[in-house]
Protein backbone atom coordinates (compact mmCIF):
# COMPACT_ATOMS: atom_id res chain seq x y z
CA UNK A 1 0.00 0.00 0.00
CA UNK A 2 1.25 3.52 -0.76
CA UNK A 3 1.98 5.70 2.24
CA UNK A 4 -0.89 7.70 3.66
CA UNK A 5 -0.04 10.89 1.82
CA UNK A 6 0.21 9.05 -1.48
CA UNK A 7 -3.07 7.26 -0.76
CA UNK A 8 -4.85 10.58 -0.23
CA UNK A 9 -3.32 11.85 -3.43
CA UNK A 10 -4.49 8.76 -5.33
CA UNK A 11 -7.97 9.10 -3.83
CA UNK A 12 -8.16 12.71 -4.98
CA UNK A 13 -7.06 11.67 -8.44
CA UNK A 14 -9.67 8.89 -8.50
CA UNK A 15 -12.42 11.42 -7.72
CA UNK A 16 -11.17 13.90 -10.30
CA UNK A 17 -11.09 11.25 -13.01
CA UNK A 18 -14.38 9.71 -11.90
CA UNK A 19 -12.75 6.34 -11.23
CA UNK A 20 -15.17 5.04 -8.62
CA UNK A 21 -13.47 1.63 -8.31
CA UNK A 22 -10.10 3.21 -7.55
CA UNK A 23 -11.76 5.67 -5.17
CA UNK A 24 -13.47 2.90 -3.23
CA UNK A 25 -10.31 0.76 -3.13
CA UNK A 26 -8.19 3.65 -1.92
CA UNK A 27 -10.73 4.65 0.72
CA UNK A 28 -10.88 1.08 2.01
CA UNK A 29 -7.12 1.05 2.36
CA UNK A 30 -7.12 4.38 4.15
CA UNK A 31 -9.84 3.25 6.54
CA UNK A 32 -7.96 -0.01 7.19
CA UNK A 33 -4.87 2.03 7.97
CA UNK A 34 -6.86 3.92 10.60
CA UNK A 35 -7.24 7.17 8.73
CA UNK A 36 -10.19 9.21 10.10
CA UNK A 37 -13.22 9.20 7.79
CA UNK A 38 -13.31 12.97 8.08
CA UNK A 39 -9.86 13.18 6.47
CA UNK A 40 -11.00 10.99 3.62
CA UNK A 41 -14.01 13.22 3.03
CA UNK A 42 -11.79 16.29 3.23
CA UNK A 43 -9.57 14.89 0.50
CA UNK A 44 -12.55 14.18 -1.71
CA UNK A 45 -14.02 17.61 -0.99
CA UNK A 46 -10.78 19.28 -2.01
CA UNK A 47 -10.77 17.23 -5.21
CA UNK A 48 -14.35 18.27 -6.03
CA UNK A 49 -13.52 21.91 -5.31
CA UNK A 50 -10.51 21.70 -7.59
CA UNK A 51 -12.61 20.10 -10.31
CA UNK A 52 -15.33 22.73 -9.88
CA UNK A 53 -12.78 25.49 -10.33
CA UNK A 54 -11.53 23.84 -13.51
CA UNK A 55 -15.13 23.57 -14.72
CA UNK A 56 -15.57 27.31 -14.18
CA UNK A 57 -12.48 27.88 -16.30
CA UNK A 58 -13.84 25.61 -19.07
CA UNK A 59 -10.97 23.19 -18.56
CA UNK A 60 -13.26 20.25 -17.83
CA UNK A 61 -16.85 19.67 -18.92
CA UNK A 62 -20.19 18.38 -17.71
CA UNK A 63 -19.39 14.66 -18.25
CA UNK A 64 -16.24 15.05 -16.12
CA UNK A 65 -18.30 16.58 -13.31
CA UNK A 66 -21.00 13.92 -13.57
CA UNK A 67 -18.59 10.98 -13.26
CA UNK A 68 -16.64 12.70 -10.47
CA UNK A 69 -19.89 13.32 -8.58
CA UNK A 70 -20.84 9.67 -9.06
CA UNK A 71 -17.47 8.50 -7.75
CA UNK A 72 -17.82 10.89 -4.80
CA UNK A 73 -21.26 9.51 -3.95
CA UNK A 74 -20.10 5.89 -4.17
CA UNK A 75 -17.14 6.51 -1.90
CA UNK A 76 -19.35 8.50 0.48
CA UNK A 77 -21.66 5.47 0.79
CA UNK A 78 -18.63 3.50 1.97
CA UNK A 79 -17.35 6.21 4.30
CA UNK A 80 -20.66 7.36 5.76
CA UNK A 81 -20.95 4.67 8.49
CA UNK A 82 -17.44 5.56 9.66
CA UNK A 83 -18.36 9.24 9.78
CA UNK A 84 -21.36 8.40 11.91
CA UNK A 85 -19.20 6.26 14.17
CA UNK A 86 -16.89 9.26 14.57
CA UNK A 87 -19.88 11.46 15.35
CA UNK A 88 -18.81 13.70 12.50
CA UNK A 89 -22.15 13.91 10.75
CA UNK A 90 -23.81 15.97 13.42
CA UNK A 91 -20.99 18.46 13.29
CA UNK A 92 -22.01 19.63 9.85
CA UNK A 93 -21.43 23.20 8.68
CA UNK A 94 -25.13 23.77 8.21
CA UNK A 95 -28.33 22.28 6.87
CA UNK A 96 -29.45 22.86 3.32
CA UNK A 97 -32.78 21.79 1.82
CA UNK A 98 -32.28 21.58 -1.92
CA UNK A 99 -34.73 21.06 -4.75
CA UNK A 100 -35.83 21.80 -8.31
CA UNK A 101 -39.06 23.80 -8.51
CA UNK A 102 -42.44 22.44 -9.55
CA UNK A 103 -42.83 21.88 -13.28
CA UNK A 104 -39.13 21.28 -13.73
CA UNK A 105 -37.28 17.98 -13.63
CA UNK A 106 -33.86 19.06 -14.84
CA UNK A 107 -31.84 18.04 -11.84
CA UNK A 108 -28.26 17.79 -13.08
CA UNK A 109 -27.36 21.18 -11.64
CA UNK A 110 -29.09 20.46 -8.37
CA UNK A 111 -27.33 17.11 -8.06
CA UNK A 112 -23.94 18.71 -8.61
CA UNK A 113 -24.69 21.41 -6.05
CA UNK A 114 -25.72 18.69 -3.61
CA UNK A 115 -22.42 16.86 -4.05
CA UNK A 116 -20.43 20.05 -3.68
CA UNK A 117 -22.34 21.07 -0.56
CA UNK A 118 -21.82 17.64 0.99
CA UNK A 119 -18.18 17.81 0.04
CA UNK A 120 -18.02 21.15 1.85
CA UNK A 121 -19.48 19.59 4.99
CA UNK A 122 -23.13 20.58 4.76
CA UNK A 123 -25.97 18.23 5.66
CA UNK A 124 -28.20 18.22 2.59
CA UNK A 125 -31.87 17.30 2.45
CA UNK A 126 -32.52 16.53 -1.22
CA UNK A 127 -36.14 17.41 -1.97
CA UNK A 128 -35.79 16.11 -5.52
CA UNK A 129 -37.33 17.74 -8.56
CA UNK A 130 -40.81 19.02 -9.41
CA UNK A 131 -41.04 20.36 -5.85
CA UNK A 132 -44.03 22.59 -5.00
CA UNK A 133 -43.40 25.87 -3.18
CA UNK A 134 -45.20 24.60 -0.10
CA UNK A 135 -42.77 21.67 0.23
CA UNK A 136 -39.81 24.07 0.27
CA UNK A 137 -41.47 26.00 3.06
CA UNK A 138 -42.13 22.82 5.06
CA UNK A 139 -38.44 21.93 4.73
CA UNK A 140 -37.36 25.41 5.82
CA UNK A 141 -38.24 24.53 9.40
CA UNK A 142 -35.32 22.11 9.48
CA UNK A 143 -32.88 23.98 7.30
CA UNK A 144 -30.57 26.98 7.53
CA UNK A 145 -30.58 27.45 3.78
CA UNK A 146 -33.09 26.71 1.03
CA UNK A 147 -31.41 25.96 -2.29
CA UNK A 148 -33.89 26.42 -5.13
CA UNK A 149 -33.10 25.49 -8.70
CA UNK A 150 -34.97 26.15 -11.94
CA UNK A 151 -33.81 25.20 -15.41
CA UNK A 152 -36.68 26.74 -17.33
CA UNK A 153 -37.77 30.36 -17.43
CA UNK A 154 -41.40 29.33 -17.04
CA UNK A 155 -40.77 27.69 -13.68
CA UNK A 156 -38.78 30.58 -12.19
CA UNK A 157 -41.91 32.24 -10.69
CA UNK A 158 -42.10 29.35 -8.21
CA UNK A 159 -38.96 30.76 -6.60
CA UNK A 160 -40.73 34.02 -5.81
CA UNK A 161 -43.68 32.04 -4.49
CA UNK A 162 -41.35 30.27 -2.05
CA UNK A 163 -40.01 33.60 -0.76
CA UNK A 164 -43.54 34.93 -0.31
CA UNK A 165 -44.69 31.80 1.51
CA UNK A 166 -41.62 31.93 3.77
CA UNK A 167 -42.55 35.47 4.76
CA UNK A 168 -46.14 34.45 5.45
CA UNK A 169 -44.92 31.55 7.58
CA UNK A 170 -42.56 33.91 9.45
CA UNK A 171 -39.61 31.76 8.41
CA UNK A 172 -37.96 34.29 6.14
CA UNK A 173 -35.57 35.76 8.68
CA UNK A 174 -34.33 32.39 9.87
CA UNK A 175 -33.84 30.94 6.38
CA UNK A 176 -31.37 32.01 3.72
CA UNK A 177 -32.66 31.57 0.17
CA UNK A 178 -30.15 30.61 -2.50
CA UNK A 179 -31.35 30.40 -6.12
CA UNK A 180 -29.66 29.08 -9.23
CA UNK A 181 -30.17 27.46 -12.61
CA UNK A 182 -29.55 28.31 -16.24
CA UNK A 183 -32.20 31.03 -16.75
CA UNK A 184 -31.73 32.57 -13.30
CA UNK A 185 -29.62 35.70 -12.84
CA UNK A 186 -28.39 37.90 -10.00
CA UNK A 187 -30.91 40.56 -11.06
CA UNK A 188 -33.73 38.04 -10.87
CA UNK A 189 -32.58 36.87 -7.44
CA UNK A 190 -32.59 40.45 -6.16
CA UNK A 191 -35.98 41.14 -7.70
CA UNK A 192 -37.69 38.24 -5.92
CA UNK A 193 -35.98 38.93 -2.61
CA UNK A 194 -33.66 35.92 -2.52
CA UNK A 195 -30.53 36.23 -0.40
CA UNK A 196 -28.18 35.06 -3.09
CA UNK A 197 -27.61 33.64 -6.53
CA UNK A 198 -25.12 30.96 -7.46
CA UNK A 199 -24.07 31.14 -11.10
CA UNK A 200 -22.81 27.61 -10.67
CA UNK A 201 -22.24 25.01 -7.95
CA UNK A 202 -18.94 26.50 -6.83
CA UNK A 203 -20.43 29.97 -6.40
CA UNK A 204 -23.42 28.53 -4.58
CA UNK A 205 -21.27 26.67 -2.09
CA UNK A 206 -19.11 29.76 -1.53
CA UNK A 207 -22.20 31.74 -0.63
CA UNK A 208 -23.53 29.01 1.64
CA UNK A 209 -20.21 28.87 3.46
CA UNK A 210 -20.09 32.62 3.87
CA UNK A 211 -23.60 32.61 5.34
CA UNK A 212 -22.52 30.00 7.86
CA UNK A 213 -19.81 32.34 9.02
CA UNK A 214 -16.92 30.87 7.10
CA UNK A 215 -14.71 32.45 4.50
CA UNK A 216 -15.14 30.96 1.07
CA UNK A 217 -12.20 28.80 0.08
Amino acid at each position, binding site marked *: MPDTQDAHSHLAQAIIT*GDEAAGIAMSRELLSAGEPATDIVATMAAAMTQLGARFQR*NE*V*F*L*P*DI*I*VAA*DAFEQVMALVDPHLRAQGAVSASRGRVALGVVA*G*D*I*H*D*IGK*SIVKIMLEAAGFAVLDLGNDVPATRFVEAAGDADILGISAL*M*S*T*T*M*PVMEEVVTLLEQARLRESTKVLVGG*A*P*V*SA*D*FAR*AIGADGYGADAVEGVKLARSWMGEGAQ
Partner: protein
Amino acid sequence: MTGKQRFLTALNGGRPDRVPIFLRDLTLGLDLCDLDTSQVSGGYDSVAAVQAVVASQRRFHQDAVVGCIHDLGLDVEAFGGHVEFPRRGIPFVARAPFADADRLREVRSVDPAENGRWPAVIETYRLVKQQLGDDVAIAANIEGPVTRAGVLRGLDKLAMDLMRRPALAAELVELSTTIAEAHVRSLAGAGADLVFVAAASDGPAAISPTHYAELTIPGLRRIVAAARDCDLPVVFHPHGPFTDPRFRELVDMALDCGIQGFQFGEGCDLSLARELWGDRACILGGPDVPEVLLPGPVEKVRRVTADCLDRAMGTGGFVLMASCSLHRNTPSAHIDAMVETALARGQYTQGA
Protein backbone atom coordinates in the same frame (compact mmCIF):
# COMPACT_ATOMS: atom_id res chain seq x y z
CA MET B 1 -37.90 43.42 -49.88
CA THR B 2 -39.90 40.66 -48.12
CA GLY B 3 -38.82 39.27 -44.81
CA LYS B 4 -37.88 36.02 -46.49
CA GLN B 5 -35.68 37.81 -49.01
CA ARG B 6 -34.17 39.88 -46.21
CA PHE B 7 -33.35 36.81 -44.12
CA LEU B 8 -31.98 34.69 -46.95
CA THR B 9 -29.90 37.61 -48.27
CA ALA B 10 -28.24 37.97 -44.88
CA LEU B 11 -27.83 34.20 -44.55
CA ASN B 12 -25.96 34.22 -47.85
CA GLY B 13 -23.64 36.89 -46.46
CA GLY B 14 -25.28 39.75 -48.33
CA ARG B 15 -26.64 43.13 -47.28
CA PRO B 16 -30.42 43.43 -47.11
CA ASP B 17 -32.32 46.68 -46.50
CA ARG B 18 -32.12 46.17 -42.74
CA VAL B 19 -30.95 43.58 -40.23
CA PRO B 20 -33.37 40.62 -40.34
CA ILE B 21 -35.12 39.56 -37.13
CA PHE B 22 -35.52 35.90 -36.19
CA LEU B 23 -36.56 35.25 -32.58
CA ARG B 24 -36.78 31.45 -32.81
CA ASP B 25 -39.70 31.68 -30.40
CA LEU B 26 -40.74 28.10 -29.77
CA THR B 27 -43.72 28.62 -27.45
CA LEU B 28 -43.96 32.40 -27.04
CA GLY B 29 -46.87 32.77 -29.46
CA LEU B 30 -49.05 30.80 -27.06
CA ASP B 31 -48.99 33.81 -24.70
CA LEU B 32 -50.02 36.19 -27.46
CA CYS B 33 -53.06 34.03 -28.26
CA ASP B 34 -53.84 33.17 -24.63
CA LEU B 35 -53.56 29.47 -25.41
CA ASP B 36 -52.83 26.67 -22.95
CA THR B 37 -49.68 24.66 -23.59
CA SER B 38 -51.53 21.46 -22.83
CA GLN B 39 -54.23 22.35 -25.31
CA VAL B 40 -51.86 23.09 -28.18
CA SER B 41 -48.83 20.88 -27.62
CA GLY B 42 -50.42 18.03 -25.68
CA GLY B 43 -52.50 16.45 -28.42
CA TYR B 44 -50.92 18.81 -30.91
CA ASP B 45 -53.54 21.15 -32.28
CA SER B 46 -52.15 22.29 -35.64
CA VAL B 47 -54.69 25.04 -36.15
CA ALA B 48 -53.99 26.63 -32.77
CA ALA B 49 -50.23 26.21 -33.28
CA VAL B 50 -50.42 28.06 -36.59
CA GLN B 51 -52.42 30.82 -34.92
CA ALA B 52 -49.65 31.22 -32.31
CA VAL B 53 -46.80 31.21 -34.84
CA VAL B 54 -48.52 33.77 -37.04
CA ALA B 55 -49.40 36.01 -34.09
CA SER B 56 -45.77 36.08 -32.96
CA GLN B 57 -44.49 36.78 -36.47
CA ARG B 58 -46.84 39.71 -36.87
CA ARG B 59 -46.37 41.19 -33.41
CA PHE B 60 -42.57 41.08 -33.58
CA HIS B 61 -42.01 41.75 -37.31
CA GLN B 62 -40.06 38.55 -37.73
CA ASP B 63 -38.37 37.82 -41.04
CA ALA B 64 -38.06 34.12 -40.24
CA VAL B 65 -40.03 31.84 -37.92
CA VAL B 66 -39.93 28.26 -36.75
CA GLY B 67 -42.89 26.68 -38.53
CA CYS B 68 -44.54 25.14 -35.49
CA ILE B 69 -44.89 25.36 -31.72
CA HIS B 70 -41.87 23.28 -30.81
CA ASP B 71 -40.81 21.35 -27.74
CA LEU B 72 -37.95 19.02 -26.93
CA GLY B 73 -40.34 16.14 -26.38
CA LEU B 74 -41.61 15.82 -29.94
CA ASP B 75 -39.74 12.55 -30.47
CA VAL B 76 -40.04 11.31 -26.94
CA GLU B 77 -43.50 9.73 -26.79
CA ALA B 78 -43.04 7.78 -30.00
CA PHE B 79 -40.13 5.95 -28.37
CA GLY B 80 -41.99 5.27 -25.14
CA GLY B 81 -41.07 8.29 -23.04
CA HIS B 82 -43.42 10.71 -21.31
CA VAL B 83 -43.83 14.46 -21.74
CA GLU B 84 -45.61 16.77 -19.30
CA PHE B 85 -47.50 19.80 -20.56
CA PRO B 86 -47.90 22.42 -17.80
CA ARG B 87 -50.96 24.51 -18.64
CA ARG B 88 -49.02 27.77 -18.94
CA GLY B 89 -45.49 26.40 -18.96
CA ILE B 90 -43.10 24.77 -21.37
CA PRO B 91 -43.48 21.06 -22.11
CA PHE B 92 -40.78 18.98 -20.47
CA VAL B 93 -39.61 15.40 -20.69
CA ALA B 94 -40.73 13.68 -17.49
CA ARG B 95 -39.43 10.26 -18.54
CA ALA B 96 -36.71 9.84 -21.15
CA PRO B 97 -37.49 6.91 -23.45
CA PHE B 98 -34.00 5.42 -23.29
CA ALA B 99 -33.33 6.01 -19.61
CA ASP B 100 -33.20 2.22 -19.72
CA ALA B 101 -30.61 1.71 -22.44
CA ASP B 102 -31.93 -1.77 -23.25
CA ARG B 103 -34.97 -0.11 -24.81
CA LEU B 104 -32.75 1.02 -27.69
CA ARG B 105 -33.11 -2.51 -29.07
CA GLU B 106 -36.86 -1.96 -29.46
CA VAL B 107 -36.62 0.97 -31.90
CA ARG B 108 -38.46 0.10 -35.09
CA SER B 109 -38.96 3.31 -37.04
CA VAL B 110 -37.61 6.83 -37.08
CA ASP B 111 -40.04 7.96 -39.78
CA PRO B 112 -41.58 11.21 -38.46
CA ALA B 113 -44.81 10.51 -40.33
CA GLU B 114 -45.32 7.46 -38.12
CA ASN B 115 -44.19 8.96 -34.84
CA GLY B 116 -46.35 10.44 -32.09
CA ARG B 117 -47.14 14.13 -32.55
CA TRP B 118 -44.96 14.55 -35.64
CA PRO B 119 -47.69 14.14 -38.29
CA ALA B 120 -49.51 17.10 -36.72
CA VAL B 121 -46.26 19.05 -36.47
CA ILE B 122 -45.54 18.49 -40.15
CA GLU B 123 -49.08 19.64 -40.94
CA THR B 124 -48.42 22.79 -38.90
CA TYR B 125 -45.34 23.58 -40.99
CA ARG B 126 -47.48 23.16 -44.12
CA LEU B 127 -50.15 25.50 -42.82
CA VAL B 128 -47.61 28.10 -41.66
CA LYS B 129 -46.01 27.92 -45.08
CA GLN B 130 -49.40 28.55 -46.68
CA GLN B 131 -50.04 31.58 -44.48
CA LEU B 132 -46.60 33.17 -44.26
CA GLY B 133 -44.40 31.40 -46.76
CA ASP B 134 -44.38 34.09 -49.44
CA ASP B 135 -43.11 36.74 -47.04
CA VAL B 136 -41.32 34.96 -44.22
CA ALA B 137 -38.57 32.32 -44.17
CA ILE B 138 -39.68 29.10 -42.48
CA ALA B 139 -37.04 27.42 -40.31
CA ALA B 140 -37.12 23.69 -39.60
CA ASN B 141 -36.04 23.50 -35.95
CA ILE B 142 -34.10 20.27 -35.50
CA GLU B 143 -32.11 19.20 -32.44
CA GLY B 144 -28.37 18.62 -32.80
CA PRO B 145 -26.92 15.10 -32.57
CA VAL B 146 -25.79 15.09 -28.94
CA THR B 147 -28.63 17.38 -27.87
CA ARG B 148 -31.30 14.98 -29.11
CA ALA B 149 -29.40 12.01 -27.65
CA GLY B 150 -29.47 13.82 -24.30
CA VAL B 151 -33.22 14.30 -24.56
CA LEU B 152 -33.84 10.65 -25.44
CA ARG B 153 -31.49 9.20 -22.83
CA GLY B 154 -31.53 11.94 -20.17
CA LEU B 155 -28.58 14.35 -20.23
CA ASP B 156 -27.10 13.13 -16.96
CA LYS B 157 -27.12 9.52 -18.16
CA LEU B 158 -25.71 10.49 -21.55
CA ALA B 159 -22.93 12.45 -19.85
CA MET B 160 -22.09 9.34 -17.84
CA ASP B 161 -22.22 7.19 -20.99
CA LEU B 162 -19.79 9.51 -22.75
CA MET B 163 -17.22 8.71 -20.08
CA ARG B 164 -18.02 5.14 -19.11
CA ARG B 165 -19.99 3.61 -22.00
CA PRO B 166 -18.74 5.48 -25.07
CA ALA B 167 -20.06 2.85 -27.50
CA LEU B 168 -23.56 3.31 -26.12
CA ALA B 169 -23.23 7.10 -26.33
CA ALA B 170 -22.12 6.78 -29.94
CA GLU B 171 -25.08 4.51 -30.70
CA LEU B 172 -27.49 7.06 -29.19
CA VAL B 173 -25.95 9.89 -31.19
CA GLU B 174 -26.11 7.76 -34.33
CA LEU B 175 -29.83 7.15 -33.78
CA SER B 176 -30.37 10.84 -33.03
CA THR B 177 -28.62 11.86 -36.23
CA THR B 178 -30.72 9.43 -38.25
CA ILE B 179 -33.85 10.94 -36.71
CA ALA B 180 -32.57 14.43 -37.57
CA GLU B 181 -32.00 13.43 -41.19
CA ALA B 182 -35.56 12.11 -41.37
CA HIS B 183 -36.89 15.37 -39.91
CA VAL B 184 -34.93 17.41 -42.46
CA ARG B 185 -36.56 15.51 -45.29
CA SER B 186 -40.08 15.66 -43.89
CA LEU B 187 -39.92 19.38 -43.01
CA ALA B 188 -38.36 20.23 -46.37
CA GLY B 189 -41.38 18.52 -47.89
CA ALA B 190 -43.62 20.68 -45.72
CA GLY B 191 -42.06 23.86 -47.09
CA ALA B 192 -39.14 24.76 -44.81
CA ASP B 193 -36.68 27.29 -46.26
CA LEU B 194 -33.79 26.46 -43.96
CA VAL B 195 -32.71 24.01 -41.30
CA PHE B 196 -31.87 25.37 -37.86
CA VAL B 197 -29.84 22.90 -35.83
CA ALA B 198 -30.61 23.68 -32.19
CA ALA B 199 -27.74 22.17 -30.27
CA ALA B 200 -27.66 23.33 -26.66
CA SER B 201 -25.82 20.20 -25.49
CA ASP B 202 -23.51 19.94 -28.51
CA GLY B 203 -20.95 22.52 -27.45
CA PRO B 204 -18.44 23.06 -24.66
CA ALA B 205 -21.21 24.38 -22.42
CA ALA B 206 -21.95 20.67 -22.00
CA ILE B 207 -19.53 18.31 -23.73
CA SER B 208 -15.80 18.37 -24.26
CA PRO B 209 -14.16 19.53 -27.49
CA THR B 210 -13.14 15.91 -28.06
CA HIS B 211 -16.72 14.68 -27.86
CA TYR B 212 -17.76 17.59 -30.09
CA ALA B 213 -15.22 16.55 -32.72
CA GLU B 214 -16.04 12.85 -32.47
CA LEU B 215 -19.83 13.00 -32.19
CA THR B 216 -21.30 16.40 -33.02
CA ILE B 217 -19.29 17.17 -36.14
CA PRO B 218 -19.90 13.86 -37.97
CA GLY B 219 -23.59 14.17 -37.11
CA LEU B 220 -23.72 17.78 -38.28
CA ARG B 221 -22.03 16.76 -41.54
CA ARG B 222 -24.81 14.24 -42.15
CA ILE B 223 -27.54 16.75 -41.32
CA VAL B 224 -25.99 19.28 -43.72
CA ALA B 225 -25.83 16.61 -46.44
CA ALA B 226 -29.51 15.79 -45.91
CA ALA B 227 -30.37 19.49 -46.07
CA ARG B 228 -28.32 19.95 -49.24
CA ASP B 229 -30.24 17.11 -50.86
CA CYS B 230 -33.32 19.26 -50.24
CA ASP B 231 -31.57 22.50 -51.30
CA LEU B 232 -31.82 23.96 -47.80
CA PRO B 233 -29.16 26.03 -46.01
CA VAL B 234 -28.24 25.16 -42.43
CA VAL B 235 -27.74 27.35 -39.36
CA PHE B 236 -25.97 25.75 -36.39
CA HIS B 237 -26.45 26.82 -32.77
CA PRO B 238 -24.39 24.99 -30.16
CA HIS B 239 -23.75 26.53 -26.74
CA GLY B 240 -20.36 27.54 -25.41
CA PRO B 241 -17.76 30.30 -25.27
CA PHE B 242 -16.81 29.94 -28.93
CA THR B 243 -14.95 33.22 -29.25
CA ASP B 244 -12.57 32.07 -26.49
CA PRO B 245 -9.30 31.21 -28.29
CA ARG B 246 -9.41 27.66 -26.89
CA PHE B 247 -12.69 26.90 -28.65
CA ARG B 248 -12.46 28.80 -31.91
CA GLU B 249 -11.42 25.75 -33.89
CA LEU B 250 -14.79 24.20 -33.00
CA VAL B 251 -16.49 26.91 -35.05
CA ASP B 252 -14.12 26.24 -37.95
CA MET B 253 -15.00 22.53 -37.77
CA ALA B 254 -18.71 23.37 -38.04
CA LEU B 255 -18.12 25.77 -40.92
CA ASP B 256 -16.13 23.08 -42.70
CA CYS B 257 -19.29 20.93 -42.63
CA GLY B 258 -20.90 23.43 -45.01
CA ILE B 259 -23.24 25.37 -42.73
CA GLN B 260 -24.30 28.84 -43.87
CA GLY B 261 -24.85 30.42 -40.48
CA PHE B 262 -23.66 30.09 -36.89
CA GLN B 263 -25.69 31.44 -34.01
CA PHE B 264 -23.56 32.53 -31.09
CA GLY B 265 -25.15 32.21 -27.64
CA GLU B 266 -24.35 33.48 -24.19
CA GLY B 267 -20.74 34.28 -23.40
CA CYS B 268 -19.67 35.04 -26.97
CA ASP B 269 -18.35 38.31 -28.39
CA LEU B 270 -20.39 39.10 -31.51
CA SER B 271 -17.94 41.65 -32.91
CA LEU B 272 -15.09 39.19 -32.53
CA ALA B 273 -17.22 36.46 -34.13
CA ARG B 274 -17.85 38.73 -37.07
CA GLU B 275 -14.15 39.54 -37.36
CA LEU B 276 -13.12 35.89 -37.17
CA TRP B 277 -15.80 34.22 -39.28
CA GLY B 278 -17.89 36.92 -40.96
CA ASP B 279 -16.28 36.24 -44.32
CA ARG B 280 -17.19 32.54 -44.13
CA ALA B 281 -20.68 32.51 -42.65
CA CYS B 282 -23.64 34.56 -41.57
CA ILE B 283 -23.36 35.57 -37.91
CA LEU B 284 -26.54 35.25 -35.85
CA GLY B 285 -27.04 36.35 -32.27
CA GLY B 286 -28.18 39.08 -29.93
CA PRO B 287 -29.27 39.94 -26.40
CA ASP B 288 -28.71 37.45 -23.63
CA VAL B 289 -31.98 35.73 -22.62
CA PRO B 290 -31.40 35.13 -18.88
CA GLU B 291 -29.45 38.33 -18.23
CA VAL B 292 -31.35 40.79 -20.43
CA LEU B 293 -34.56 39.66 -22.10
CA LEU B 294 -36.11 37.95 -19.11
CA PRO B 295 -35.30 40.46 -16.33
CA GLY B 296 -35.25 43.63 -18.46
CA PRO B 297 -35.88 46.46 -17.86
CA VAL B 298 -36.85 47.87 -21.24
CA GLU B 299 -34.06 50.46 -21.20
CA LYS B 300 -31.46 47.74 -20.71
CA VAL B 301 -32.96 45.68 -23.55
CA ARG B 302 -32.74 48.70 -25.86
CA ARG B 303 -29.16 49.45 -24.83
CA VAL B 304 -27.93 45.86 -25.24
CA THR B 305 -29.73 45.39 -28.55
CA ALA B 306 -28.20 48.58 -29.91
CA ASP B 307 -24.78 47.41 -28.79
CA CYS B 308 -25.26 44.02 -30.49
CA LEU B 309 -26.25 45.75 -33.72
CA ASP B 310 -23.31 48.15 -33.58
CA ARG B 311 -20.93 45.26 -33.00
CA ALA B 312 -22.22 42.77 -35.51
CA MET B 313 -24.41 44.19 -38.30
CA GLY B 314 -21.50 45.50 -40.36
CA THR B 315 -22.47 45.71 -44.00
CA GLY B 316 -24.59 42.57 -44.01
CA GLY B 317 -24.38 38.89 -43.19
CA PHE B 318 -25.97 39.32 -39.77
CA VAL B 319 -29.31 38.22 -38.31
CA LEU B 320 -30.56 39.55 -34.99
CA MET B 321 -31.72 36.81 -32.64
CA ALA B 322 -31.75 36.41 -28.88
CA SER B 323 -28.89 34.40 -27.39
CA CYS B 324 -31.13 31.31 -27.50
CA SER B 325 -34.74 30.36 -28.18
CA LEU B 326 -37.59 32.33 -26.63
CA HIS B 327 -40.46 30.80 -24.73
CA ARG B 328 -43.74 31.81 -23.20
CA ASN B 329 -43.58 34.01 -20.10
CA THR B 330 -40.85 36.12 -21.68
CA PRO B 331 -42.16 39.69 -21.20
CA SER B 332 -43.52 40.90 -24.55
CA ALA B 333 -42.56 44.48 -23.70
CA HIS B 334 -38.92 43.42 -23.59
CA ILE B 335 -39.15 41.76 -26.98
CA ASP B 336 -40.97 44.79 -28.37
CA ALA B 337 -38.05 46.93 -27.16
CA MET B 338 -35.55 44.63 -28.88
CA VAL B 339 -37.50 44.65 -32.13
CA GLU B 340 -38.17 48.41 -32.11
CA THR B 341 -34.45 49.03 -31.60
CA ALA B 342 -33.60 46.71 -34.47
CA LEU B 343 -36.10 48.34 -36.80
CA ALA B 344 -34.76 51.80 -35.99
CA ARG B 345 -31.04 51.13 -35.71
CA GLY B 346 -30.61 48.13 -37.99
CA GLN B 347 -31.15 49.92 -41.28
CA TYR B 348 -28.42 49.56 -43.90
CA THR B 349 -27.70 52.82 -45.65
CA GLN B 350 -28.06 52.62 -49.41
CA GLY B 351 -24.67 52.24 -51.04
CA ALA B 352 -22.90 51.64 -47.76
